[in-house]
């Protein structure tokens, strides 16, 4: 590290070094009434007092509150929830039970070992048991009747426990606490599904007479309370001040050198990671690289394996790791990391969560992971022991990365971005209501709604969805104000929580028909089309055929010196608008009236995505060595969008005219999409973009940012509320960018945005941010009927 700080070559490229000095703990004695056996247990592990945040959590939990602790990795969050759970167990002589949910199976198994040991130390016939897909059937029965602490994951709760709740009636009768770890991972489709699984859980618990409290843990979050409330359906007390001590940690923010200042072109982060590896990898310590994309993991792993001798390592000491690798391979790499056999690992976010790989020494983040929560989770992978640790963030030529390279304080300050979570997404809600009706019938209140239901009472449109299911799907029957499950089927089996969609495409070795990987539906048309190069652990496979209908792609291993990148055409149509805010132009119209300046909207859209062609790009040189057409059906998506429209007169005033207008407008759209992770916890790919210079629906320039998930999970709503922050960050990126006419770090390169693109985008943003803020505006009565006109207008095209 000293070399990096002193050698001239590196020194100038680090925008900021942040050294977190050792911090002293703030402690409190154990709260009164804590069982002496628990105090003794903690003392035996060297904890004679609690950190303040632990003490506050324990007191709130024992007082019957729902609590969330949102503090960094290694701040002693586990103890926060184990103390109240064990205390209540002791107080009730073993009657009070608790259920633990971990977002991955691996985490559950890790925690199980610890809890089992702790419960055994209490010296009673009480048990902590893991219930997951690996639990043998012979053990399940004992576990159901005698497991005081049951550790499981959302999938097992959804498909195994809740549909068979009678078998778990002992647990539900006395369920005191529901513990959920890593709740910041519960966003998007998965989080929205889990929120519904929790509604089902509350409903079942209430049926058996218990009313469990939620004990939640998360990484540091923006608005943790709001997220927790959406997740569990009721207000939660938040504890977010970390009082734990910490050893010395060093963070560096590294900005790759400008190759061409006019074009604003910086050396690629991946290239720089390869260069930095010579300083940061070696036989004496363990280094972890985090990449943003699966392909980047493959490319970097390949680079590093080739450079292994120069690093003093053997190629097999360098491994790639990502979702899509089969479980056995992943377990092998995890063990290699724990035992120290693996010296370098290149990973996606797959290693971000608490899977036990031991504490490593150096973390290199190739690009900002899209959220501060992820940033801290990744940086927290190193230095858990008392050894000094180093974390380096390599900024990409990307607006968010460049913004943070200039504002590193934002990384270290209060988190800004919000998590998207929408338990009332109609697709998710309707599927989950099916599962819930299977578990217990729904009874309508006097008003025909189900407001008094313990789990779904607050769900929007729940009764109407049940009616729909009763009438359309024939799974439910409504009799005398009650919806009953009436089918010979087990719905949880067919309902997915997300992340492992049945629509996923399986990638198979064409000769052995063995699975080599998996990819989601939306990404499949751009990654496993015929001719695509698909990469697994640095190996290249060429897709021979893509059976789109049956969701299977067949690949053959090849030695490829290029990778592929696909291009798409996107068409967005407005189906229904739900909200609008606008402001009028300052100059009065000739007739003395006022006219609209610009507006933002929120509503439902239909998106058609067509993969058009792919380019072959040489590894290392990134030279374009050819292009081919892609012949696949379009991907259809119904989702929600945030829309920004500018009136024609304002567009004219701001110079958004002439031949370049489409390019400049698109440049602004690209920039907004790319800075969105500053206000929203997401990857740019979670948001789709379409820019229209004359939208058929609005009849003026429009930028659509839509949720790339069927039905949407609330991202558009966050953008609508945070549009000022979004526009502000975009303007700052443009102003700060060193380029003259646009570059990948702001609006996009000159060739894409045109000579006036950067200037126009800047003028637009300045205009949008100056003057009065937007005011809510009624949706005109014809706002939705316009959609038809627009559709008709578009139909012939």
């Amino acid at each position, binding site marked *: 590290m000293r070399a990096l700080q002193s050698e001239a070559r590196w020194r100038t490229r680090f925008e900021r070094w942040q050294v977190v000095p050792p911090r002293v703990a703030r402690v409190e004695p154990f709260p009164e009434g804590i069982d002496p056996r628990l105090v003794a247990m903690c003392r035996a592990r060297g904890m004679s007092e609690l950190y303040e945040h632990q003490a506050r959590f324990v007191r709130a939990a024992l007082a019957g509150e729902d609590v969330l602790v949102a503090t960094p990795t290694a701040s002693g969050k586990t103890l926060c929830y184990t103390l109240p759970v064990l205390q209540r167990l002791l107080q009730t002589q073993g009657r009070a039970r608790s259920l633990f949910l971990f977002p991955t199976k691996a985490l559950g198994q890790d925690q199980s070992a610890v809890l089992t040991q702790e419960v055994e130390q209490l010296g009673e016939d009480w048990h902590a048991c893991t219930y997951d897909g690996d639990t043998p059937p012979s053990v399940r029965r004992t576990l159901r009747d005698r497991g005081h602490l049951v550790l499981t994951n959302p999938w097992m709760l959804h498909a195994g426990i809740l*549909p*068979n*709740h*009678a*078998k778990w*009636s002992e647990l539900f009768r006395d369920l005191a606490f529901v513990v959920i770890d890593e709740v910041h991972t519960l966003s998007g489709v998965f989080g929205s599904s889990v929120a519904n699984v929790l509604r089902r859980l509350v409903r079942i618990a209430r*049926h058996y007479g218990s009313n469990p409290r939620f004990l939640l843990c998360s990484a540091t979050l923006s608005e943790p309370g709001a997220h927790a409330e959406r997740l569990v359906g009721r207000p939660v007390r938040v504890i977010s001040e970390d009082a734990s001590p910490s050893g010395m940690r060093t963070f560096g923010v590294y900005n790759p050198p400008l190759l061409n200042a006019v074009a604003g072109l910086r050396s690629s982060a991946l290239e720089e990671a390869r260069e930095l590896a010579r300083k940061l990898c070696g036989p004496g310590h363990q280094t972890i690289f985090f990449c943003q994309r699966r392909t980047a993991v493959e490319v970097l792993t390949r680079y590093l394996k080739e450079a292994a001798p120069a690093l003093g390592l053997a190629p097999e000491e360098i491994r790639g790791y990502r979702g899509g690798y089969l479980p056995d391979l992943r377990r092998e790499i995890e063990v290699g990391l724990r035992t120290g056999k693996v010296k370098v690992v290149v990973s996606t976010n797959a290693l971000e969560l608490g899977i036990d790989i031991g504490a490593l020494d150096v973390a290199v983040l190739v690009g900002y992971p899209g959220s501060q929560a992820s940033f801290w989770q990744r940086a927290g992978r190193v230095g858990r022991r008392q050894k000094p640790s180093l974390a380096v963030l390599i900024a990409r030529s990307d607006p968010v990365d460049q913004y943070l390279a200039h504002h590193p304080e934002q990384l270290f300050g209060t988190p800004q971005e919000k998590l998207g979570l929408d338990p009332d997404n*109609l*697709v998710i809600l*309707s*599927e989950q209501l099916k599962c819930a*009706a*299977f*578990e*217990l*019938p729904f009874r309508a209140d006097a008003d025909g709604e189900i407001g008094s239901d313990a789990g779904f009472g607050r769900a929007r*449109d729940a009764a*109407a*969805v049940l009616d*729909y299911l009763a009438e*359309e*799907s*024939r799974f439910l*029957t409504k*009799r*005398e104000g*009650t919806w*009953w*499950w*009436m*089918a*010979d*089927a*087990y*719905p*949880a*089996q067919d309902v997915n929580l997300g992340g492992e969609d049945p629509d996923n495409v399986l990638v198979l070795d064409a000769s052995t028909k063995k699975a080599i990987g998996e990819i989601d539906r939306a990404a499949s048309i751009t990654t496993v089309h015929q001719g695509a190069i698909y990469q697994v652990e640095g190996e290249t496979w060429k897709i021979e055929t893509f059976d789109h209908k049956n969701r299977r792609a067949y690949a053959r291993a090849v030695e490829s010196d290029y990778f592929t990148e696909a291009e798409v055409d996107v068409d967005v149509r407005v*189906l*229904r608008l739900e909200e609008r805010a606008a402001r009028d132009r300052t100059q009065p119209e000739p007739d003395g009236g006022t006219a609209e300046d610009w507006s933002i909207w929120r509503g*439902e859209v239909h998106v058609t995505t067509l993969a058009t062609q792919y380019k072959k790009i040489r590894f290392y040189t990134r030279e374009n060595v050819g292009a081919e057409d892609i012949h696949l059906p379009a991907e259809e998506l*119904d989702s929600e969008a945030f829309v920004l429209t500018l009136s024609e007169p304002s567009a004219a005033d701001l110079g958004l005219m002439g031949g370049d207008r489409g390019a400049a407008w698109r440049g602004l759209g690209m920039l907004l999409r790319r800075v969105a992770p500053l206000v929203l916890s997401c990857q740019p790919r979670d948001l789709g973009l379409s820019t229209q210079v004359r939208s058929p629906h609005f009849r003026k320039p429009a930028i659509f940012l839509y949720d790339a998930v*069927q*039905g949407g999970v609330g991202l558009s709503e966050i953008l609508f509320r945070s549009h000022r922050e979004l526009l502000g960050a975009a303007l700052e990126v443009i102003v700060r960018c060193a380029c003259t006419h646009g570059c990948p770090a702001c609006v996009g390169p000159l060739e894409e945005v045109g000579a006036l693109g950067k200037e126009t985008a800047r003028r637009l943003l300045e205009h949008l941010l100056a003057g009065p803020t937007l005011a809510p505006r009624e949706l005109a009565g014809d706002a*939705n*009927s316009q959609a*038809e006109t627009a559709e008709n207008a578009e139909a012939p095209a």
Partner: protein
Amino acid sequence: MSESLRERLARLRREDERASPPPASSVRERLARRAARVPVAIPPERLVQEGTVLARRTAAERHGGLVLCDALSADRALLAREARDERIADLDPAHALYLDTETTGLSGGSGTYVWLVGLGAFEAGRFEVWQGFLPEPAQEQALLAHVAERIRAAAYVVSFFGKSFDRHRLEDKMRMHGIEPPFAEKPHLDLYWPLRRRYRGHFGDCRLRTLESQLCGVEREDDLPGSFAPAAWFDFLHGRPHRLEGVFQHNLDDVKSLVTLLAHLGRELPSPSAPRASSEETLP
């Protein structure tokens, strides 16, 4: 002219792409639709409201060519040995309860209803089958509470594969309704296991239908396979009761077969001379 919630749901759920109704029931539904065209629907007759429960009682003397009372003279020690449960040696088959249920599905889980419970018992040397029926899902608790009491009062339970199936369906549903399940300490003679041990490989499989025919000479006429039970009840709830009678009959025959098979098991027999086939067998 905004889109209704219904239309939005259909669109968002990609209803057109879904394999709508699951394949198993679509066959049944086609059959049900065809059957629904039969002009006269015949509801089960002789159903009587007994307190909170709707039930029908049928006395029976014979099943196939066999006299049901033969079961009363079964060798108890032999039964206990075959069942590997010594408690049965002290119990009188006259005080046993012969149990068979019809449900809305084999997959289990809380959404499965036990809609017909057949309980056979000897009273003063005469065999009678009580069939408790669920005419409305809302009456499940009443039916189950009644069934639980009858089982609790019996000396032991006789079933065929019921330890693995009927018992669990009933237990789950009873727990769900806050009824203490009666099975925990109750001796339970599940005829499937001892008969399977004795006759495995003799008749191709060890289903109830096979055993009653091979061992007791029972041949059923017009039997509606048990797999029709879910659809028959769903049809009934939708105003088409035409197949209920068939399931009642099927359930009645199943209960009577329990008696004849117990009688058979409780008699020492020379081992049948048929060769032990190695063909795969399926569960009943």
